[in-house]
């Protein structure tokens, strides 16, 4: 079973977001593997351990994204590829990823259901369409047998069991597994593993972006609200009165 994992490097979840010249300031920010992509790496490794095969991690990003790929290699992935200095939007990233995997042999492509920075939740599904593969999103349980995948996926107020032939694109959600930490041995071995770097030009893909960001802005600072004084009984009554008469929400 050969598995490709799409992996995006993102800001740490604690990162304080500031603007500099109208762009998100990246200085002093700690970077991590997108948490959902970490579930994808772990799942790929578990499948490999059970059934054999190879795990390849791919990222579209800048030089720094090498760290994230190295970490996945240290967890146990076999090979990594970085497509450097991309331009553009989700449409473009999906096109680039499709080209990057075109020459590879794979049975399954895993990714996160959303990246916690841009958070559009588009890239993996766009990639599935680009490769004309079936996709199952927001998966919390994945079982493979006889060239089929049985996936439990989250929907509003419940779940769905979806069955699909392989190859397919599956995006991971919390609950699927507990990602491992890289071992010291893993970290040592990762240094020797292949981390191929290519550019979109070398892949022969040139794409125009379809979405233009006009402005980035920070949300207006919320004024701290009213603290309601008094004992529980009094304060409770007052809160209900305010919700009814002032906020008019009940």
């Amino acid at each position, binding site marked *: 079973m050969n598995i490709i994992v799409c992996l995006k490097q993102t800001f740490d979840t604690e990162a304080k977001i500031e603007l500099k010249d109208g762009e998100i300031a990246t200085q002093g920010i700690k970077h991590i593997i997108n948490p959902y992509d970490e579930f994808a790496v772990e799942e790929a490794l578990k499948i490999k351990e059970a059934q054999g095969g190879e795990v390849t991690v791919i990222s579209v990003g800048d030089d720094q994204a090498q760290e994230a790929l190295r970490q996945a290699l240290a967890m146990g992935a076999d090979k990594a590829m970085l497509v450097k200095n991309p331009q553009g939007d989700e449409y473009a990233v999906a096109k680039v990823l499709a080209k990057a995997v075109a020459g590879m042999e794979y049975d399954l492509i895993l990714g996160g259901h959303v990246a916690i920075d841009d958070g559009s939740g588009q890239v993996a599904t*766009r990639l599935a369409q680009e490769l004309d593969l079936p996709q199952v999103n927001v998966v919390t349980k994945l079982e493979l047998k006889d060239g089929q995948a049985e996936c439990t996926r989250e929907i509003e107020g419940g779940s769905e069991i979806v069955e699909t032939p392989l190859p397919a694109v599956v995006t991971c959600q919390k609950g699927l597994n507990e990602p491992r930490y890289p071992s010291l041995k893993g970290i040592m071995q990762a240094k020797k593993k292949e981390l191929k770097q290519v550019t979109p030009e070398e892949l022969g893909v040139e794409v125009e972006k379809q979405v233009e960001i006009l402005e980035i802005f920070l949300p207006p600072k919320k004024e701290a609200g009213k603290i309601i004084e008094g004992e529980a009984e009094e304060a409770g009554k007052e809160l209900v009165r305010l919700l009814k008469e002032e906020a008019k929400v009940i």
Partner: protein
Amino acid sequence: MAIWVIAEQRDGELKKVSLEMLSKGQELAEELGTELEAVLIGDEIEGLADSLAAYGAAKVYVAEDEELGTYSSEGYSQVISELIEENEPDAVFFGHTAFGKDLAPRVAQKAGAGMVSDITAVEVEADQLVFTRPIYAGKAFTKSKVLSKPVVATFRPNVQDLGEAAETSANIETVDVDLADIRAKVKEVKQQSGGRVLLTEADIIVSGGRGMKGPENFDILEQMADVLGAAVGASRAAVDAGWREHQYQVGQTGKTVSPTLYIACGISGAIQHLAGMSSSKYIAAINKDEEANIFNMADYGIVNDLFKVVPVLTEEFKKVL
């Protein structure tokens, strides 16, 4: 030339977000001087077309087929993609729900189109749609426009106002369906909502955190929620402790919610929790620590023991509702 709303229905019931998109879509269509139309897909669903017309759809494309009785990404996207190719709408709107998130990127890529996800606002500027959406879990926002045609967008539920329903019947265009092989198929659907409103659609959410001290204490939140017709959410601390299931988690790695009122009980207000609920219209917090970060967000705060305050609230809500 038209704005399309892809209607979402489950078990023959329309999702509120579809009607919200129509209400907003009607305004936008007027401003742009174009038509508002809806697409309805499923099995035995034609009866729903009138509701779509009532909220402003001048025409409803209805694709009915037994194979479309259960949702499939490939089947539904094929129907929509063929319709787009034939009719060339200017914009296609989906709800940012499990359905829309699964379908919209597939449709967009097929059309070679750009898409803006999880939008919280849209306006017309210089004859173009400009979308506002949160990034970094609401720590920043972008305004963007889509350069392709069609423009694809997914709308966050519960953010757009619902207009008035008109008394009208639908102008229906029946769509011929000839599905290719569908590979990924839904075998089973497990609903777990137990009759309560869904978190992502709820007008009022009552949420509990580590301050609830144990799973059994969520009963007092359930009782308050029953009185309010509210949904019950939880912080990750409560979920990780095994007190609530993950699907009720609000936050960066849980659900994003936009209710009119969010009542946070025993929740400290960690950045990852705020990420999921900061777009609530009103926030009320009960926490015994006056330094808790949630009070920086809350419109109304009570510094006290939640076990004393929540029962009072429940009784008071009963009186005024």
